[in-house]
Structure formats: structure tokens, C-alpha cells
């Protein structure tokens, strides 16, 4: 009150000063209309109600929950009404807020179980929708104390709506703030939009109506309530001191109820029409989930939260690709950062993938495959590598290890020599292998580069760089024994690589039974290697067992980079096989290794990097002579030397299966993921909008796989992704711009045709004078539009005078815009009409205008001809 009195006294003093200084003063401005604060509050209440109900009702309706619609509507409107009237006057503001909060607390306490149960019902349904969407097998299940969802959901909606109406009242009534209103309503809607569910169109209309109304009112500035005093001031007055010592009084109209109502009405119209247009345009094609980087990142968290509650987000960590070194549990989500882990230079020799092996897992315990480090286990007997001679084909590879981990060396299969430019690294290939290679493939060693040549490959802060000689060939199995395999080694293999943790065999056997995968280990063990047919059959049986398992995984398990973590106390492999049934390469490799061991097939878990063919295609070519890099009878077609940027996304896990008398062969167990590249229909914006306006069956394929290590997937679409990401906006933008262009074109066409049509109608009635005058009307208007005339509607005489002077001078100056600084004059050339013709047309026009309808057809035609010459 003191503030109001102070403001009044200040106003009085300022007016007294004005009387003294200027001899006059202005009182309070008014429109003469009775200020209707009640109606203004009512309109605000309507906006708050639309925003609240549009949000709460939209979310609940989107997931298909039933509620008492009339009761919720009435309750939310009453609450919105009450909230809006908090601003009615000072008393309602101070007392009203106390009442609101007291009522809110009382309602919360008295209806706690209903509200709680309604909320839990909502969450349960929502989580189920998420589970369906992401194909999750387990979801959080909350307890509903009151099971009548129709009632409880209504309670919960009123509770949440009450809360929202208080916040929205501040945003709308207090400040008419669009960003705040948008965020308050947009964020809750994300709970359903995230999984491609859409609130029914009426709710969207309500929300867009509120957005447009708030935006227009905020920008207009006419949204405040008139001052609550005896006079009911309708204008806000601000006195400003100007730079030149003058004073400026700004009088801003606060608001009018009719104006606000009209704006709200127009906004409703705009929102409805716009959504109808959009729905009409985009209703033809089906909807598909469109993958994107943001969702790929957030999906993992969402899934974890859905499965294990929000608190689960607090005690998880992410992996960014790279080697796991056999550590398998604890990673709920792999999100590669696509940073370079190594550069590899070689001559491509296959359309398949090049595996660079590093880590070998031997024994499995405590969710980890413990393996060798670079110092080969002393217990392991020598095993020559390559497993089989390659028949005179050699290749070399340069590897620069940037950030791939320096505990291990990465080398392709069947490599037999490695050289390093840093002596401390030592030699990664067993001496026996190198010795064997020296004896048999002496010519290949001529390809080795000197230390100086290798240095050119060293850039940045590479820790390792080395050269490997290897045998390039496609991953095929040769059904012939390897003379280098010793009995001692095989004995070691069967002792070591059939190991399964205690108590886990039963679970694995049960799984294999259910999957129907069989392998008679005793039958196919110790087959005579000299019996080619039996030996081949034995090897094939072993590979078939692995193949059966891979097919089973493909058909029954899902690939995902975000499987969620293994719960504490659960075994990584058992949980994956029995509960999770979704995971990335490490899950499949580790489980396969144990399952095949269970069948009696020596298997080991391997980690490393995979260079896919797509990586090769995306890589940079390097100048050089291919013959210095490869000795081959059949050089790969069109191959050159390439340098591949291998990122952490290329890290991978697979298994190696031991074939008796032959050696280890790599085997891929990870099933392919969904299509990573967007299809044409997915790129279409139709699909995007289809999701908004029409609820259809959705493709819930999880596209979150960026693990290029999976052979089938590859790493597709990274280069063109940015363009494709923008492409989806193209078609609707074309539609919108097209509609706009059509509207503008129609307006201009109408303006052009209007006088023609009107004059034709007059001509039909024989009114030549009227028709001529109708056609003439465009003359002063066109001159005005060209800024040659100051007024749009000039008299006949004024127009004549102007054109006459224009024709006499040959040109006329374009009028400068008023209030603007005078710029260089622009002259416009006079029309082709002569002064005589001008006089003739003017006399015709005067005759038409002032002498009744006494104009003849010839005169009309002559007049039209001359009017055309005037412009």
C-alpha cells in the first residue's frame, strides 16, 4: 500500500512540475470503456487451462490410460481459474497463494494413496510402453495400492495439473513468458514423444494455441491487467529524458479483454488450420523410428532407468569402445567416441574384414576372461603361427598404435614376423614362427622396410609403430592338417581351453538343450588326420556346432550397444543367456566360448580390432608401389595401398575355435544388428510427421549400433549422415514454402484481376464509363506503389498534373521515404504517352466521371489503350 501511495505522490509531484514547466499536464489516459479485470483474468485462466490440460491430458491419453474426462476437465479449469485470479488484486494475491498451497497440501495428504497409485499406474504403463518400444525383457514394476486406475489416474492428473497450473500461472499471468511456458509443457510431453507416441491432435491444438497466444500477447505488450485503483488506469506511463534535453512520455495500453480474446481465438484458428494442413500433407506414408546420434546416446540411459529405476543411473559407467581386456561386467552402455586408436597401412586383399588380434582370454572367472599379456605364458608350449602355410602369398602391414592400449600388439592372422622401431617393444611373434618363416618364405623378408622408412609413418605421439609380415587370404578353412601342430600342443589346448567355472556347466548344458545344439565331442576327437574324408567331416561338425549357436543367437537374441549392466551377484554369461538376451560383441564371444567349451570344443575368447571393408573404402589411399607391399599370384582387383583410420568403434571381441591337427581359427558369433543406414522412406519427412499425427504400428528395431567391429554392420553412413540428417526437412519446407508462394501469388493475381473482372461486369451492363474508371483506378495506385505519388488515392486533377509534369520533364524523382535521411535522388523515366494523348484520356475520364453514363464503346476502347500507355 505504501508503494502505491508513494507512486501516487510521485505522479502528483511530476504533474505539478509539468504544470509549472509547460503550463499544462496530462491526466490518466483512458479508452472510455469499463475496465474488465474479471474477464481478463478469465482469459488468462483459459490459457492456463489449455496449457495444463494439453500437457497432462495429452501425456495420459497418448499412453492410452483412461480417466474421468469431465471431472478432470472441470477440476483443472477450476484450478486454472483460481490460479489466474490470484492476480486479480492484492488481497487475492496474498491470501490466494496461502489458500492454494494449503489446499494443495491438504489434497496431497488426504488423497495420498490415490495420487500415489495413479502415478504408479502411469509409470507402469509408461514403462511397459518403453519396454515394448525398446524390446526390453525386464521393466521396473511399481506397486499400485489402489487398483482402480480410472479413479487413481484422475486423482493423479488433478494433482499434477494443480502443480502445473501454479507454475503456468506464473509463466502466463505473471510474465506472459513463452520460453517458460514452452519448457513447462514441452518437457513432460517428451515422456511419450521419446518413444514415438503422440498425444491426440486436440491436445496439440491446445498447446500450440497457447504458444501462439502467449507469443503474440508478449510481443504486443498488451497483456497486463489495468491498475487496480479508483480510476482503473488503463495505460502505463513512463517519462523518459531524451538526449537533447527534451522529455518523452510513453503511454502503453495495458490490455483489453476483447483484444486478448480475439488473439486467443485467432491463435486457436492458426493452430487448428496449421495442424490440419500438416496432417493432410503428411498422412500418406507410414511411420518408422528414425535413429539419430542424440537418441543413441540417451537411449542407453532411458533403458537403464526403465529397467532398474532412475537411481540406477547414478552408479553406472560408460565404456567408450576400445579393448575391455576380458573384463566383461559393469558395462551397461558402450558409446564409442570415434577417436583414432590406430592407423593401419596395407594393401586390401578381401571384401571381408581384417581382424587384428590382441587379447586372448583363457580362463573365465568372476565375469572376466583372464588371458595372456604380451609375454606369452611360459606354460604354453610353442605353437607355430600361421597355422598353415599360405602357398607363396605374403603381404606386409604397417601399424601405428596411437591409443589402442600398449599392453598388447595388434596383428593380423597368419602373421609371422614383426619389426619395431622402438627396441623396448621386443618381438611379438614367437621365435619359432619367425624361424619357420625365414626358412620357408625367405623372399617375403625382402619386403621389410628399414627403420628410416618406417619413421615416415610415425606422426604425432604414437607410442608404437611396427611392421608385420602376414599371409593374406580370405577367412577360409583348409581341410588339411597342419604339420606344425604337435601332440604336446594339442594336449595343452584340451587341458586349458575346455575350462568352465565350477557350477556353471549345468546352466550352460540346459541352455544348449533348449537351443537344440548338439555336438558329440568323443566321436569327433582323435580322428585320423590321414583319413581326409573323416578328418574333413570332423572339422565340419565342429564348425557346424559353432554355426548352429551363431544362428540361434541371431534368431533369439538382439544386438545392442546398451544392454544394461549385469546385476550385482549375477554371472555375466548366465545372466546374458537366461535373462538379458541382448548385448554387444563381448557378450556373444564370452558366452559362445563357454558354450562351445561345454560341448567339448576348445575355444578361446579374443579381443582386438576389426577393419571392415567399409572402413577400407572410407580410408585414404597412399602412393606407393603395390608390389613392394604384396607378393601375390592373384593381386586383389584394383587394390592400392590404403591407410585406415581405426577408431575405438572398431574394437571387437570374437572367438577362436581349435580344429584338431590344424590350429586356431577365428569365428564370428555376434549377430548382425539392425540397419544402421536410413532407408529412403525413413529419411522422408512424411515419416517424421506421420509419427506426430497418426498413431501407427512402429518399427521398434533398435538402431543404436555403431560398433563397426560387427562384420555385417560395418560403419555405414557416417560421411553422408550430416546431409541426410538435414534432408528430412526438405520436403515439408518445400510444401510450406510452396503454399506460401501460392498464397502470395493468389493475392497478387486477385489484385491484378479484380479491376479486370469488375470492369467486364460493368461492360456487360453497358456501363462503359464505370468500366473505364475502374480500370483507371490502378494508375494512381501503381504510381503510389512505385513511390512516385505521395498518396494512394489522388484526385483526377492531381494525377493529371503529376503525369503532365512527368511527361514534360521526361523523368521524375522518386519520393524519398519520409523521416529518412535524404539520399541520392532516383529518377524514373516518363511513360510513352504524349501530352495530347494525356489530355485526351483525362477528358475521357472527366466525361466518364462527371457526365453520367454517356461514354461509347469506341471511347472506352480508346481510353483503355491510353491508360496502358500511361504506365
Amino acid at each position, binding site marked *: 500500500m505504501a508503494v502505491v501511495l508513494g507512486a501516487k505522490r510521485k505522479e502528483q509531484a511530476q504533474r505539478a512540475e509539468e504544470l509549472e514547466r*509547460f503550463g499544462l499536464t*496530462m491526466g490518466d*489516459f483512458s479508452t472510455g470503456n469499463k475496465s474488465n479485470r474479471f474477464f481478463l483474468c478469465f482469459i488468462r485462466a483459459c490459457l492456463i487451462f489449455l496449457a495444463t490440460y494439453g500437457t497432462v491430458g495429452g501425456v495420459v491419453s497418448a499412453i492410452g490410460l483412461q480417466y474421468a474426462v469431465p471431472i478432470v476437465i472441470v477440476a483443472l479449469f477450476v484450478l486454472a481459474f483460481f490460479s489466474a485470479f490470484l492476480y486479480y488484486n492484492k488481497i487475492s494475491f496474498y491470501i490466494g497463494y496461502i489458500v492454494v498451497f494449503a489446499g494443495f497440501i491438504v489434497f496431497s495428504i488426504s488423497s495420498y494413496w490415490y495420487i500415489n497409485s495413479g502415478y504408479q499406474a502411469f509409470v507402469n504403463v509408461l514403462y511397459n510402453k518403453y519396454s515394448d518400444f525398446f524390446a526390453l525383457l525386464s521393466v521396473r514394476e511399481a506397486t499400485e495400492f489402489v487398483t482402480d486406475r480410472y479413479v487413481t489416474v484422475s486423482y493423479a492428473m488433478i494433482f499434477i495439473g494443480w502443480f502445473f497450473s501454479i507454475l503456468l500461472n506464473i509463466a502466463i499471468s505473471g510474465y506472459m513468458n513463452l520460453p517458460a511456458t514452452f519448457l513447462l509443457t514441452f518437457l513432460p510431453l517428451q515422456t511419450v514423444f521419446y518413444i514415438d507416441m503422440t498425444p491426440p491432435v486436440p491436445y*496439440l491444438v491446445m498447446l500450440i494455441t497457447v504458444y501462439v497466444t502467449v507469443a503474440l500477447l508478449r510481443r504486443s505488450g498488451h497483456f497486463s491487467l489495468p491498475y487496480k485503483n479508483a480510476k482503473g488506469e488503463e495505460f502505463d506511463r513512463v517519462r523518459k529524458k531524451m538526449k537533447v534535453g527534451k522529455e518523452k512520455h*510513453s503511454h502503453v495500453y495495458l490490455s483489453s479483454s476483447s*483484444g486478448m480474446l480475439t488473439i486467443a481465438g485467432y491463435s486457436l484458428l492458426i493452430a487448428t488450420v496449421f495442424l490440419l494442413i500438416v496432417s493432410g500433407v503428411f498422412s500418406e506414408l507410414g511411420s518408422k523410428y528414425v535413429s539419430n*546420434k542424440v537418441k543413441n546416446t540417451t537411449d542407453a540411459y532411458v533403458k537403464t532407468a526403465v529397467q532398474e529405476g532412475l537411481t540406477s543411473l547414478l552408479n553406472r559407467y560408460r565404456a567408450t569402445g576400445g579393448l575391455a581386456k576380458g573384463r566383461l561386467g559393469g558395462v551397461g552402455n558402450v558409446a564409442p567416441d570415434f577417436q583414432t586408436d590406430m592407423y593401419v597401412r596395407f594393401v586390401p586383399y578381401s571384401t571381408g574384414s581384417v581382424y587384428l588380434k590382441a587379447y586372448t582370454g583363457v580362463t573365465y572367472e568372476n565375469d572376466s576372461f583372464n588371458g595372456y599379456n604380451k609375454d606369452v605364458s611360459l606354460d604354453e608350449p610353442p605353437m607355430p603361427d600361421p597355422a598353415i602355410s599360405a602357398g607363396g602369398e605374403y603381404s606386409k602391414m604397417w601399424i601405428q598404435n596411437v591409443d589402442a592400449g600398449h599392453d598388447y600388439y595388434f596383428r593380423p592372422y597368419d602373421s609371422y614376423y614383426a619389426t619395431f622401431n622402438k627396441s623396448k617393444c621386443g618381438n611379438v611373434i614367437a621365435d619359432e614362427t619367425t624361424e619357420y618363416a625365414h626358412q620357408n618364405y625367405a623372399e617375403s623378408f625382402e619386403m621389410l622396410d628399414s627403420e628410416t622408412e618406417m619413421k615416415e609413418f610415425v606422426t604425432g605421439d604414437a607410442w608404437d609403430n611396427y611392421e608385420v609380415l602376414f599371409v593374406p587370404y580370405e577367412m577360409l578353412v583348409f581341410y588339411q592338417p597342419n604339420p606344425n601342430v604337435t601332440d604336446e600342443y594339442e594336449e595343452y589346448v584340451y587341458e586349458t581351453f575346455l575350462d568352465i567355472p565350477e557350477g556353471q556347466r549345468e546352466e550352460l548344458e540346459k541352455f544348449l538343450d533348449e537351443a537344440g545344439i548338439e555336438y558329440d565331442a568323443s566321436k569327433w576327437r582323435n580322428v585320423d588326420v590321414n583319413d581326409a574324408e573323416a578328418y574333413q567331416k570332423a572339422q565340419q561338425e565342429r564348425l557346424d556346432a559353432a554355426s548352429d549357436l551363431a544362428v540361434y543367437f541371431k534368431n533369439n537374441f538382439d544386438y545392442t550397444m546398451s544392454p544394461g549392466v549385469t546385476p550385482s551377484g549375477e554371472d555375466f554369461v548366465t545372466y546374458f543367456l537366461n535373462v538379458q538376451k541382448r548385448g554387444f560383441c563381448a557378450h556373444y564371444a564370452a558366452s559362445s566360448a563357454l558354450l562351445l567349451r561345454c560341448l567339448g570344443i576348445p575355444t578361446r575368447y579374443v579381443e582386438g580390432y576389426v577393419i571392415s571393408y567399409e572402413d577400407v573404402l572410407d580410408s585414404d589411399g597412399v602412393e606407393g608401389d603395390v608390389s613392394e607391399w604384396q607378393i601375390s599370384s592373384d593381386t586383389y582387383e584394383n587394390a592400392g595401398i590404403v591407410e585406415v583410420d581405426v577408431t575405438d568403434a572398431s574394437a571387437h571381441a570374437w572367438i577362436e575355435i581349435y580344429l584338431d591337427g590344424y590350429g586356431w581359427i577365428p569365428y564370428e558369433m555376434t549377430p548382425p544388428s539392425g540397419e544402421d543406414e536410413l532407408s529412403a522412406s525413413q529419411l522422408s519427412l512424411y515419416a*517424421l*510427421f506421420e509419427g506426430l499425427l497418426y498413431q501407427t504400428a512402429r518399427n521398434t528395431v533398435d538402431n543404436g549400433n555403431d560398433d563397426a567391429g560387427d562384420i555385417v554392420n560395418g560403419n555405414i553412413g557416417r560421411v553422408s549422415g550430416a546431409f541426410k540428417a538435414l534432408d528430412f*526437412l526438405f520436403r515439408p519446407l518445400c510444401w510450406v514454402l510452396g503454399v506460401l508462394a501460392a498464397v502470395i501469388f493468389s493475392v497478387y493475381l486477385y489484385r491484378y484481376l479484380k479491376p479486370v473482372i469488375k470492369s467486364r461486369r460493368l461492360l456487360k451492363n453497358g456501363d462503359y464509363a464505370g468500366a473505364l474508371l475502374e480500370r483507371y483506378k490502378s494508375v494512381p495506385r501503381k504510381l503510389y506503389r512505385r513511390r512516385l505519388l505521395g498518396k494512394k488515392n489522388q484526385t483526377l486533377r492531381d494525377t493529371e498534373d503529376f503525369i503532365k509534369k512527368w511527361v514534360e520533364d521526361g523523368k521524375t524523382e522518386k519520393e524519398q521515404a519520409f523521416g529518412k535521411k535524404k539520399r541520392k535522388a532516383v529518377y524514373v523515366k516518363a511513360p510513352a504517352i504524349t501530352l495530347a494523348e494525356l489530355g485526351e484520356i483525362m477528358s475521357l475520364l472527366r466525361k466518364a466521371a462527371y457526365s453520367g453514363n454517356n461514354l461509347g464503346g469506341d471511347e472506352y476502347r480508346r481510353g483503355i489503350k491510353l491508360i496502358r500507355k500511361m504506365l
Partner: protein
Amino acid sequence: MYRTYHPLYIISYILTIILFVLGAVFYRQPLIAVLLLLMIVLVPFSVFITLICAERLEPDAVSDRSGEISVAQSVTLTLKLTNPTIIPMLNCRLDFSLGNSLLGSFDNEVVMPAEAKRTKEVRIPIETSMPGMVRVVFSSLAVTDFLHFCTFTYPYEKIIELPVMPTQRQLPPLQFTKVSIPSDEAVSTGDGDLTTDIKEVREYRNGDRLRDIHWKILARKDEIMVKEYDRTKDLYYVLLPEFEYDFLKDDLEIFYACGKELLKRKETFRVALAGDTGDFLEMYKVASIEELDTVLYRIYDVYSGLKSGETSQIYDVFSRQYPDMPGVIRIHRGNIVMPEIIEEY
């Protein structure tokens, strides 16, 4: 019409659109995409609709009093803004200055919405405390589009003048002395018609003015006779108001009271005012209250440039032209200074 763009609003809108484009591209959110399209559609809607409607707006301003008003009398000025279109809440701004011609003015802007198909009226009550010419000068009507990208300003030139008359003041009993000024001197407006005393009636001669024809005789006797006036014996009072900024109100009141008093005595008098440049005299003959008002309005114009501490230089100019100052009623610093007092002064 000229356009003024608002870069801050435009940039902020573009940034918002970019934000929504990024949201639509990277988050693939249909609602964001719909709002983005809506934002794009709203731009031409806002600008072109406003431009089309702004041309059709019809501003007007009227005062509830057309004639003179007295000091402290309230006047209501009514601004009218007619919007014949169906677009509501066009953001309009009417610029005008308001002031007393003798004291200065201040600028005003009225920001109001033009409602669809309605005439919006704004009533502005004006109170006065000083005589002078209250002048309301309208300069422009500016219309800003809904998104505040552009303001279209149209000239609206209208002037409303309301003369505020000095307050009635009772004068003490005064003995005025008439002054005789030869007609062939600098009294340019004299020329015989300054008095109604007819010297003789004679026959018409070539060159006589039509207005001097004695129409009654013509009507009665059908003879063309001409009235001839006595041009030498005209005696007048001359009011010499010396306005000083700090005594302006008193000076005006005394001047007006003197004039009225003389008219009450059925005396025709003259008023000496400073010319526009201040170094020559303007003499006005006053024979009626209307003529007195006209002179008063002229005073409102002539003395509008006075500043605090300044006095009009009329006394010096007058004394140079008429050194003996016969019969002059001098108004100085809110007092009437009679000739004998002048000598003492």
C-alpha cells in the same frame, strides 16, 4: 512510409529457428519440427499482414472544445484509431508533441493496439495552468508487426490548437490618455478607416473606394455619394506589453484586462507588438473582443521563444520610433505603467 528493422528481434528469432532446426535434425522430434515450420510460416504472416493492414489504419484526433478555453479548464483530447481490417491487436504507436506555445513542449507516444473492425478511442485529459496556445502536433503513426521484425511508419500530420485565455483580473481605476498618431506616419493600418467620424459626404469621383460609397443615400435617392473621414484627428490608446518570461502570466492577464476595459469604455485602441525579428513594431488596431483575441493569439506566437530572465525588446523599439510616447499604456513586470510613471522610470 518507411520501414525500421529491429535486428535484435530478428537475430533472436533466427537463433531460435536455428535451435529448433538443430533440435529437429539431431533429436528428430516431430513436435519440434511442427513448431519450426510454424515459426517459419509466422514470419511472412506477421510482416505482410501487418504491412497490408497498416496502410488501412485511419488515425484521427479531436478535441472536445473547439474554441478558446480558460486557464485551469480541463480539455479532453480524443485519439481515434480505426482498423477496418480483421486483424486484431496491431501494435500501433502514435507520436505527438504537446505543449504551450509560450513555454515549450514535450514529446509523447501512445502505444495501443488497433482492434479488428473497431475504432479504438483514447481520451487524454489535459489540464492547463498558463495562458498560451496549447498545441498538439501529431507526426506519425508507426505499426510494428507481431514478431517485432519491422516497424512501418506513416506520416500523420495534424495539429490541434487550443487557445488558453488569461484569467480575468480586476484592474484598479485608471485614467488613460489617448495618443494621436498622424495617419501618414508609420501607422500602416490607419488609412482613414480607423475612426467612424465622418468629415463630409460628397459626390463620387473616379478612384474612390467602393467601401466608402454611402449605400443608404444611394438606396434612398439613387445618387452615388461618398463618405469622407477625418484623417487627422484620430486619437488612440496604445497598449505596449513588455512580456518577460518570469512575469508572463501576470503580463498576459493585465494586458487582456486592459484591453477588455478599453473595449468596455467603447474605445478603439492599438497594440504594439514586436515583429518576428524583434527590431520593428507591429501595430494592431483593436475595436472588438474578437480583434483583441486575435492579437492575443498573435502574442502567443510572437513571444514563444522567450526564456527565463528574458524580456521582449518592444520598449526600446517603441521608444526609438516614438520618443515622446504620448498616451502609451505600458505593461511591465505585471504592472501597468502610465506615461507619467514612464518619465519617472
